[in-house]
């Protein structure tokens, strides 16, 4: 996917804003305001899963892309592609979920489009959402201002979404009470952004999980990111399924968590701001920014060893034994 974007899409459509490849594009209006703009398409199997559905995911994903730029969501668009014969009651259920999640995020769907394609030309339902939002003056979550000594926080347990989906997928006959963490994060982020001194980096660990976000942080800053494995919150259930399938929770997707970097002297305050929101109750300080190893993520393992965390490559495949 990364190659596809870098080798084909980017050269063809190249411009300064696109080149940043941020969660959202940030545009400057003539009046000097900053607008964040983002789009995402959602194709997920199964459409309904514990803790959410494609509708909640489509709103949360786009709201979160805005929120990670520090943008207050203003409005969303909703594009739906339906396969002929898709059950109407399912569509209604999904739309209800879109409505409720948008309400939760304090945003409205203001424009939309629906297409129906013939049976076999789509898999049930595909959804695209776009969103715009405003970025208040002074906010810069790009990571460019991250300094040595800063502290890394995560807003809650990692891997819930990825594992909840994996359990539901055909073939894996496991029973579980685990729910996806899918949620719109603007409320949580809004609270955190009130931190004096600000938040210098904000990302949601979706595809590729925490490992992907932190290797990105190391790359952008050119500094070392040191993680304490024992501090990273992972639910026992997620850990067990991962052990069983030979997966690493660090690489499993979340859809309702964020990673933030703040100055060391503000770390406690940031933690309290996160914990004050229902989605951040289990927030933790998980690491800090160091000089070394430059551009790498160093993990201090629970038993006191250390290793590098690498950029995830391809999907993790369940193992044989």
């Amino acid at each position: 996917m990364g190659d596809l974007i870098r080798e084909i899409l980017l050269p063809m459509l190249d411009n300064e804003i696109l080149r940043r490849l941020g969660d959202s594009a940030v545009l400057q209006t003539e009046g000097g305001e900053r607008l964040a703009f983002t789009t995402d398409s959602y194709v997920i199997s199964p459409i309904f899963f514990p803790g959410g559905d494609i509708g909640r995911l489509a709103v949360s994903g786009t709201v979160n892309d805005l929120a990670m730029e520090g943008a207050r969501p203003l409005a969303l668009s909703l594009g739906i592609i339906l396969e002929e014969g898709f059950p109407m009651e399912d569509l209604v259920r999904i739309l209800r979920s879109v409505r409720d999640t948008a309400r939760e995020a304090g945003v409205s769907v203001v424009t939309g489009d629906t297409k129906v394609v013939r049976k076999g030309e789509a898999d049930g339902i595909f959804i695209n959402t776009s969103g715009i939002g405003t970025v208040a003056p002074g906010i810069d979550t790009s990571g460019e201002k991250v300094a040595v000594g800063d502290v890394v926080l995560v807003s809650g347990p990692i891997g819930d979404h990825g594992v909840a989906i994996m359990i539901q997928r055909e073939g894996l006959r496991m029973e579980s009470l685990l729910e996806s963490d899918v949620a719109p994060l603007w409320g949580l982020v809004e609270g955190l952004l009130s931190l004096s001194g600000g938040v210098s980096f904000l990302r949601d660990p979706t595809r590729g999980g925490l490992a992907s976000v932190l290797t990105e942080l190391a790359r952008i800053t050119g500094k070392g990111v040191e993680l304490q494995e024992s501090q990273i919150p992972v639910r026992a259930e997620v850990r067990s399924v991962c052990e069983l399938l030979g997966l690493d929770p660090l690489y499993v997707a979340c859809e309702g968590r964020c990673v933030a970097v703040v100055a060391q002297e503000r770390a406690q305050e940031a933690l309290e701001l996160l914990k004050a929101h229902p989605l951040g109750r289990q927030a933790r300080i998980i690491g800090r920014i160091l000089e070394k190893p430059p551009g790498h993520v160093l993990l201090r393992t629970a038993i006191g060893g250390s290793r590098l965390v690498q950029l995830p490559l391809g999907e993790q495949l369940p193992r044989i034994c």
Partner: protein
Amino acid sequence: MKFLEEFRDQETAHGLLRSIGHLARDLPRVRFMEVCGTHTVSIFRHGIRDLLPENVKLISGPGCPVCVTPRTFLDQAVHLSQKPHVSLASFGDMMRVPGSQSSLEAERAKGRDVRVVYSPLDALQTARENPGRDVIFLGVGFETTAPAVAATLLRAKAEGIKNFWVLGAHKRVVPAMEAILQAEEVSLEGFICPPHVSAVIGSQPYQILAESWGMPCVITGFEPLDILQGIYMLLSQVIKKEHKVEVQYRRGVPPQGNPAALRIMGEVFQVEDSLWRGLGNIPKSGLGIKESFAAWDARIGFGLEPEDAGDPPGCSCGEVLRGLMEPANCKMFGTLCTPQKPLGPCMVSGEGACAAHFKYAQVSLVKGKRPL
């Protein structure tokens, strides 16, 4: 699964490491081979190599089933997937392994019916639900997976299911360990033996390594504290100049193994010679499907020729599997061969030594390659 945290306790780990350091203090260099790929992953994931004394080295062995499966097996699987009416069912980590022309993932992208399953019983279910399809399960693995495949074949026979086959490449671990000793290419002071395989076969089959080859053997669990304790037990044997089979992983391995699993394996499989990638033909190292189950043997049902081994030029997986080369010292490692575009199977499988080295790189690798 409450047992995870208890086996990752830092204080206990430090205590064990101190004891290991104490034992190793007056020893020359000792080298232990961790045979199983899951050990390799755990050792890297928890940063164990860097915690050990300088003179205690761990070497990754041939215990990754994907890695030791010959390339021609993949070619046969690809060939089968191209047949009309065939649905191929495989464990996930076989999907990306390159054959000589194609991989199962590439075939699936072309529209062939290739499915990832988590159990052979799921493949049998596919056959039940799709009577018009010929469902072939790729039976790859050691004694850990063989019982489940045996149980599946017994059920297929009992139910008289006619559209289900197994393309088998099951392997036995102990003959491969013996082959490594026999080749005398790498000097070892002991084996960290696989726990899950041993839960099936018990501890007795390792006796030949201890008795005939004078090799200390400790059946060791996968958690970091298991591994540290296993290393401690091996060092104790080395110091006392003992060579016996011990079980560190007592919570999972009874000495006699799992009699029910062994019984059904015996009903379905027979011991035969088998080709290993990197190791060549090893006598009595395979589990072939018995003639009484020929009706479910894909090799017979689809008239497949026997395999021959063959690696892509420049690939050092063979050396890696025999413990002769550290993955990072392969000239293709991390450049021509990466988890995204793997050339050799050791880079594809999550259990492969190269993938483990790549994903869970040691900190020392940032500075440069590390000698074996």
